């Protein structure tokens, strides 16, 4: 059976009280996945279709790995409900055009927030392509750091930045980038994944140096197959559908204001959804935090 019809969760790891990893069995997808691609997941029949980057894939084990930040209703519900032995209601992918792993000789791979995990397969791909890879990742503080040794195994240099200085460099990832650019005069390419505001800052940091900078855009999506147009973004003044034309685009051409504006489109509904969910959890005398605790290994 080449395509599974249910999607068993085989591993779960909690990195912090908001970030967790799920490894899902799907041999065909593990075989097909390439860096930069994503899946769309439905937790249950009533759920939304939520896009998540394929943070890693293991062709031997036949699994793909997702790293999720619990930010709103759907991702918190995943945090509460997804356990080893359970399954996802739906998962489709790999979606999107794979990242173009160029012949760049020296690259900086930057990850921040929900972009830390997805930058990993890109860093690994560049390494496998023979590049000198400088990893720069940002966390709020030391206790949130994950995958450090995984990154170190594929990076020639690895810079951790924390907001509070509790580990590595105190400051934003852009400081890490600027440091690396200053030290190496010959950076060919920068790849940045994270919240739009971070990707924009990275693009601005490299613009004066004219270093090619690729970013992975994360607009709101529904189908992920090019059918709804909800994921449209503005790049170089033209409309693109991130799910089929991307998600990778030239960071210097992306209209980040437009992206950030569009991400706010469902704020009131997201709030309402989360409140109702919290309320239901309370009624079941099961605070979300506890529920998450049950789910972790």
């Amino acid at each position, binding site marked *: 059976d*080449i*395509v599974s*019809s249910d999607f068993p969760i085989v591993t779960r790891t909690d990195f912090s009280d908001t970030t967790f990893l799920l490894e899902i069995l799907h041999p*065909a*997808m593990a075989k*097909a996945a390439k860096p930069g*691609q994503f899946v769309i997941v*439905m937790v249950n029949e*009533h*759920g*939304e*279709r939520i896009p998540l980057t394929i943070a890693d894939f293991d062709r031997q084990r036949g699994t793909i790995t997702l790293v999720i930040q619990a930010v709103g*209703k*759907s991702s918190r519900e995943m945090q509460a409900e997804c356990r080893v032995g359970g399954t996802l*209601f*739906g*998962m*489709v*992918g*790999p*979606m999107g*055009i794979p990242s173009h792993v160029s012949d760049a000789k020296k690259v900086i791979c930057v990850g921040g927030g929900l972009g830390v995990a997805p930058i990993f397969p890109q860093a690994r791909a560049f390494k496998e392509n023979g590049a000198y890879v400088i990893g720069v990742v940002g966390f709020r503080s030391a206790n949130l750091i994950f995958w450090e040794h995984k990154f170190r195994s594929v990076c020639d240099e690895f810079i951790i930045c924390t907001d509070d200085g509790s580990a590595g460099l105190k400051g934003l990832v852009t400081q890490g980038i600027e440091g690396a650019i200053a030290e190496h005069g010959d950076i060919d390419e920068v790849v940045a994944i994270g919240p739009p505001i971070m990707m924009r800052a990275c693009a601005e940091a490299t613009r004066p140096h004219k270093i090619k900078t690729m970013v992975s855009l994360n607009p709101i999506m*529904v*189908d*992920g*197959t*090019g*059918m*709804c*147009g*909800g994921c*449209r973004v*503005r790049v170089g003044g033209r*409309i693109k*559908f991130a799910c*089929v*034309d991307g998600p990778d685009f030239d960071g210097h051409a992306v209209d980040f204001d*437009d992206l950030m*504006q*569009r991400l*706010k*489109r*469902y704020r*009131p*509904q*997201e709030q*309402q*959804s989360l409140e*109702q969910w919290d309320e239901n959890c309370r009624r079941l005398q099961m605070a979300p935090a506890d529920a998450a605790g049950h789910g972790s290994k």
Partner: protein
Amino acid sequence: MVRKTIRNIPQERAFMPVQDPEARAANFDEVALGFDEAAALLESERCLMCPEPACIAGCPVSIDIPGFIEKLLKNDYRGAYDRLTDSTLLPAVCGRVCPQEEQCEGVCAVAVSGGLEPVAIGRLERWLGDKAIAEGWHKSRHIEPARFRVGVVGSGPASMACAADLAKAGCEVTVFEALHAPGGVLRYGIPEFRLPNSVVDAEIGQLETLGVEIKCNTLVGRLFTVEQMLSEMGYDAVFIGAGAGTPKFMDIPGENLNGVLSANELLTRCNLMHAGDFPNYDTPLGLGKRIAVIGAGNTAMDAMRVSLRLGAEEVHCVYRRTELECPARAEELHHAQEEGIAFHWLTSPVELLGDAEGNVRALRCQRMELGEPDESGRRRPVPVEGSEFDFEADTVVYAIGTSPNPILGQTSKIRLNKWGYIETDETLATSLAGVYAGGDIVTGAATVILAMGAGRKAAESIRQYLGIRDSASVY
């Protein structure tokens, strides 16, 4: 039997109840309630049993219309259904959504030479289709397994028809659908009040009875390519029915404002994701109170009527041509007008205006007038100089057509035409040996019955390609 003439047949169409416009504008129940048995028999009396029936020629799949009506009149309903389904897989669907006035009914002798309303062919088909679902009738396979495996991409009407015919010819058929539920536009596009999901489910159930396996959550091209289906996965042939899908925008300023969306997005959120039942379902819609829909095809009508049912206070249609050129089915336009949708003909937006928060607040429109006919034979709308005016709306929906879905083109060597649709010859064979295609992905956005017809034609070509003897007479 007395020969029927235009004088001795019932002059009026048999009565079909319709939900009251005011009530139905607030619910998702079916608008057209269909014939009952007595009405179906009465309407059947109206058919003249023409020796050279124009209606058959008017139907894209050449249904033997007088043939099934004759059986119906003899109370042989099962026989009528079998005759009907010699040519169509989806009578309950096509009876509801075919643009009959342009096809079978448009050329019916009762109307053309008799000057009366044509025989209500679509409604009769719907009645038989619904009866078949209620009675659990289906056509089982009578064929020895052919030991061929066929993979089908997409699960819209083209794919469903192709899969059914090949299953009946003994092939082992697997349908791959990218979304989490099958049916294509029948599922995510056409709303419940025109085509209930229960009807779509029943038709899909028929496929499963025939032994067709349906795998959802499978994006062909990305999970595996069309080429891999033939080389590694062991399929002897492939049919592609991926639909047109990708919505068009106009490339005018303001299109990315919040509150501007495609009809496909609105309908998908509502029909597939149940956004109307938010927050019990997680997908929101965030519809405003004053909706403007650009375009006047079936998709536009559906978007408008869905908006109304979800609580919009005002729904406006903005269309650059006139009511005469409006491409929607006549019945849908009529129903939309009855439900209180306001139509602004000869009007076209030139810019969308936003507020400080980035939400759309108005359309800047231009008046149009009709000029010389264009390639399509319709008079081309030309802008009237200095006629701009602003039109308030807090939600703007684009329903101005679709372009082909790019994924298969991105991932396969299959040859596309210059507009990006899959190129086929007259047998629906593509440039890849063993790969056939049909429906909207070949023709551009068309109709359910044309897609279904293409699926059947491709099934026939695949049978020939695989060397399966013609078995059409056997089942």
